[in-house]
């Protein structure tokens, strides 16, 4: 039925029924809607207002204009936090997507027990940003952790990877790469969409596996890759738990794991500067929006839609 037909039917028959349906739908949606308004939209709007105030959580907020936003440009620790966050996003997301695609390609070849492997590789994504995994990470990368024991086997002397500012961020990047499960599942679904005839035709023409990948798989998968890229970049910018747990909430050593969100949290809940924390939250929104906009702009040049 075309949309026009549907519209016609709406106008004439069944209007009463639909009205009743809409009412029922509204009531079913109401709890969710209340949650959206009071738990999400309300605080979001409030934080916008608070961004222009000095608010220490107890005394009433005091309007201070754009001071909080001006501070963003002079706050050196924030600039360091931005550096840490950008490094984290720009290194871990491409690595994570490469891993996801690699494993998806392997699984797509139809090996036995596919369902098991798919679940096994997906599991870390479910657990990745949980406290338990972050605790596990400190056990693996600690001075007396698993990694150093393995290294010790080969006569290599390790160090406290998490407690050394030169390597602490890398351990978090590895953690994020490890949670490649959810983009992998999406890649797998995308690979299934590519018609087998293309490959058959290419094989008959004598194309190697390698050029099949570059000429068929990658272009046809590019919309999926784009989708994953946008999603994972947004996700990575919002990472918090890993750094919080691994550094014991400090962002240390030497601010080397100070994610933007962790810094924001500290401003709000350790320094009681909710106004600045709110301003930071909106600034993060701008950063993520900018990255997403760049992504969409760049997509014109490399994403290929097969229709």
């Amino acid at each position, binding site marked *: 039925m075309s949309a026009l037909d549907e519209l016609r039917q709406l106008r004439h028959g069944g209007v009463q029924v639909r009205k009743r349906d809409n009412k029922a739908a509204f009531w079913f949606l109401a709890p969710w809607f209340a949650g959206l308004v009071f738990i999400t939209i309300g605080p979001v709007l409030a934080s916008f207002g608070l961004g222009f105030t000095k608010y220490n*959580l107890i005394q009433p907020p005091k309007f201070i204009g754009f001071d909080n936003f001006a501070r963003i440009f002079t706050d050196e620790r924030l600039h360091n936090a931005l550096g840490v966050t950008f490094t984290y996003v720009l290194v871990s997301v491409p690595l994570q997507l490469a891993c996801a695609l690699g494993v998806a390609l392997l699984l797509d070849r139809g090996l036995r027990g596919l369902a098991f492997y798919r679940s096994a590789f997906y599991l870390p994504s479910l657990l990745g940003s949980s406290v338990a995994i972050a605790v596990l990470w400190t056990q693996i990368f600690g001075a007396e952790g698993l990694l150093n024991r393995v290294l010790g086997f080969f006569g290599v002397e390790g*160090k*406290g990877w998490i*407690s050394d500012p*030169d390597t602490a961020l890398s351990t978090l990047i590895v953690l994020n790469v490890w949670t490649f499960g959810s983009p992998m599942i999406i890649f797998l679904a995308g690979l299934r969409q590519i018609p087998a005839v293309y490959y058959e035709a290419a094989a008959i023409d004598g194309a190697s596996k390698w050029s099949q990948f570059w000429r068929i798989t990658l272009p046809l998968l590019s919309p999926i890759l784009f989708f994953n890229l946008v999603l994972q970049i947004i996700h990575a910018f919002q990472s918090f738990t890993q750094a919080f747990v691994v550094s014991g909430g400090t962002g240390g050593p030497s601010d080397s794991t100070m994610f933007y969100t962790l810094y924001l949290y500290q401003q709000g809940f350790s320094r009681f*500067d909710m106004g600045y924390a709110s301003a930071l939250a909106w600034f993060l929104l701008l950063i993520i929006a900018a990255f997403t906009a760049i992504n969409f702009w760049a997509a014109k040049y490399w994403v290929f839609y097969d229709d």
Partner: protein
Amino acid sequence: MSRGVRRRTALTVLMSLTASLLAACGSGSEAGGDLTAEPVTLRFSWWGADDRHKRTQQVIEMFQKKHPNITIKGEFKEWNGYWDSLATTMAANDAPDIMQMDELYIASYAERGALLDLNEAKKHLDTSNFDQKALATGAVDGKQYGLPVGLGMYSIMANTDLLAKYNIPVPDDTKWSWDDLKKIGEQVSKAGGGQVFGVQSPGINDTAGLSIRARQQGKAMFDAQGKVVLPPEVATQYWTYIADLAKAGIAPPPSVTVEKASAGLNQSATATNTAVFGFWWNTQLTALTAASGAKLKLLRLPGESQGKVGAYYKPSMFWSVSSRSKHPAEAAAFVSFLANDEEAAKILLTERGVPANQKIREAIAGQLKETDKAAKEYLDTVPVSDPPRITPNGASTVDAILKRHTEDVLFGRTTPEAAAASFIKEVQSEVDAAK
């Protein structure tokens, strides 16, 4: 006529209703009022470990037996979570009635109007057995925002078992200098062969250590107005010392130091018998002895005999009442029970520090364990000078700032001079920002 009666009845009913409403408001809504006979529920929150929770719960039950109409709901967390949750519940106007408060935070909560001036509840709160100097540690601008629970002193814990093993005599702490600690530490590290180190690196949760260094030279961290007056030379000297310890192998390698620092008391070098000398509060002796299984001896800090006396009594924590508590009188009565009741004290003992209440301190003396006795004796005998000003509003992050600068120095990301300058600047800006 009948109408008149009815009107009068209505009026009486209305008046008595208003009166009872007012009475209901009056009962317990003022800190100086009488204790109510109505059922009241108070929320009481503290941070700490299992042992503390058990003891505190027992004391709560004792109080409830004496005041059957008052129910105390205990809420407890570990240190970090405690402050996060206190900040948020305060903001939500849902703060607990009675809370365990720390020296780092008391000014920032008091100056934001979150705490009750306990003098308003004098009627229910007996402070007669507290030393004036001890009481003063919980006052801001003449208002008593916290009642000190226990006292502690910053000290060095020496593992005498390890010293005996290496044939190194226990140093004479009435005379030793900071250089002496370095020398003995070096001997230990040599004997320890990479497994045992001389000194557990200071510089982490060690604001007291820096403050004492300044006090030994007649200086201080903050002046009475809360301005940072720490001389850069003192801070430079402090971080140079820490860097030297690490470079010479007297302290464990930096990454080990940093890792152990975030792992908690049981993973510390003192608790794992991997360093002989460690900086701790004297009241932690019992917990550390239990964790290490070794014999630990409390020593005075180095440098106490060369210059001025830097040591001081630090209130280990305070009892504070929320300014928004609906039942401040009952809350004060409970605080008074915690601070003054001998039966309660015999359960709590020194778990929250050597009691600041002098009468209680003597009352429990007979019941103390060996290590608790040693902690009490340390407090009773080691010379002290006037306590420093409490951490000003805004500077509750000073420990975190100190730790970050120590990490920068240990990993060679900055020099002690630069760390000193940056530390002073940052703490000052935190104090300014809170105004």
